[in-house]
């Protein structure tokens, strides 16, 4: 009971981050619309590839759309979490936010909460646009399986994002660069728009350690072939394990990195 109340309180406080970020979106709404339009167009151009004469039509379109939507969601999630520290540093607010009597867990929880909500909203908008234009047939899809895949992969991507978020605490500039490289690598090896079997052998090995590989494989199985939870259990298990291991590890590493930044003066130096 006490625990529930405590969790509830921390959740309410973590809403500070959610509200702040949505306020910022409101302020730069024009840009938000532009990005949104760009993402929709980008997804459409990818989906049209599936209609090329040599493709296999609707199935191929769905294959590509699932890849584009999932990647859209996961990369937003990763980005928002991984860049949160770097962004506050750039804005000059990092010391202010970190000096507040708020548990780091609560702060990061707020960051993740916002990332998930924001990513979901964007993805749903793109999805409606794409479904409207292509008349996609989802009658054989297992939507429940798809949803569970999404939830579990969110966990693992939050974990990866948290690990990446610590990088800017250790090195202001290089940390953020490293996060971008990591994201690019995941995009390359995880089979977002193609089957990983087309990759050279060494890249295929890398694809095994990317959680996105399992996300995409499981999501396609669920949405294209109607796979049940039981059919994709091994992928789900891997995603769950990645999240369960990486999130606490990410928090631990984050705390360590913060102490390191406080010892070496890397949080901020001017003033």
């Amino acid at each position, binding site marked *: 009971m006490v625990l529930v109340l405590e969790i509830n*309180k921390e959740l309410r*406080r973590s*809403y*500070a981050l959610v*509200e*702040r970020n949505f*306020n*910022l979106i409101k*302020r*730069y709404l024009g840009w938000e619309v532009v990005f949104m339009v760009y993402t929709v167009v980008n997804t459409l151009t990818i989906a049209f590839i599936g209609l090329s004469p040599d493709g296999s039509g609707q199935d191929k379109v769905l294959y590509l759309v699932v890849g584009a939507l999932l990647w859209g969601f996961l990369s937003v999630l990763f980005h928002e979490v991984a860049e949160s520290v770097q962004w506050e540093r750039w*804005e*000059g*607010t990092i*010391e*202010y*936010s*970190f*000096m*507040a*009597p*708020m*548990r780091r867990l609560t702060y990061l929880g707020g960051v993740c909460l916002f990332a998930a909500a924001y990513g979901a909203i964007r993805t749903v908008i793109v999805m409606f646009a794409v479904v409207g234009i292509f008349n996609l047939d989802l009658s054989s899809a297992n939507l429940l399986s798809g949803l569970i895949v999404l939830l579990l992969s969110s966990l693992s991507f939050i974990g990866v994002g948290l690990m990446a978020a610590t990088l800017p605490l250790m090195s202001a500039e290089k940390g953020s660069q490293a996060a971008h490289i990591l994201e690019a690598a995941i995009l390359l090896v995880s089979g977002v728009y193609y089957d990983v079997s087309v990759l050279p052998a060494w890249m295929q090995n890398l694809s095994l350690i990317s959680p996105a590989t399992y996300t995409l494989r499981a999501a396609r199985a669920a949405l294209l072939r109607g796979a049940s939870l039981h059919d994709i259990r091994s992928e789900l298990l891997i995603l769950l394990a990645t999240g369960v291991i990486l999130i606490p590890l990410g928090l631990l590493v984050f705390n360590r990195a913060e*102490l390191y930044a*406080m*010892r*070496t*003066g890397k*949080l*901020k130096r*001017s*003033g």
Partner: protein
Amino acid sequence: MSSALECHNARKVFYVKRERKNGSILSRLFARLIPKYKMVEAVDRLTFHVEPGEIFGILGPNGSGKSTLIRLISTLLLPDEGCITVFGHDVVKERFQVRKLINRVSVDAAFFKGLSAMENLSYTARLYDLDKGAWQDTAADILERLGLKTDKLHEPLEDLSRGMQQKIAVARALLTRPLLLLLDEPTTGLDPVSKKEVQDFVLEERALRGTTVVLTTHDMQEADRLCDRIAIIDYGRFVAMDTPGGLKSQVSPNGEDVTLEEVFFALTGKRLKDNGKPENGDVR
């Protein structure tokens, strides 16, 4: 009653990359022999205490360690040595407790500049878990006392003048009702009117709530006007610590009228003339 702030032998050292000049081959070769990083003793074993309700000023040239000291107190930097307590709570071991008791205003108004003053304050209220109804009343009261017009409060902060931004930064710090308020050059860059308004507000806040204040400034008149005691810091060390009057009589024992500015020059000026810090920051 115990001290509001106690600082015992606090020390903070930074390691900064040494600048390498592009000289002749010989001098570049030579440069490889000396370590790549040099040590900067930003805060050099400071010991002092501040009483509850006191306004304690820290004066010193650029790079003398003022902001570093403020950051050590505000739990943003870990001291390498020594011990700092805020109302009896250790800034390292009881970070969380200390954070509830303090707030800080920095030189640069650290805001989300795309957000309005009210949105920034709302973020603060949530971070500090302030009661929703109460904080808005408190904020309205503080903002009014600071002379801020309410019509500006919903505009993005980047469209506001520096003076307004800094006042909002002060308001934000006081919104959380800190027992210890850390002001790091709160009036730098403000015009004389805004400066005076902020100063008046600090005095009023102390009178009203007994808030303890640690203030750094480059403005001698400000220090003279606000502070009960002033420490003059140079190279991370206090070279003097006394009441404004006491400091003045230190410099002019035969009682002629001196300004705090003259005191400052007398106590740090000799080194200032050699143009700041010596190159070999490693050994001092």
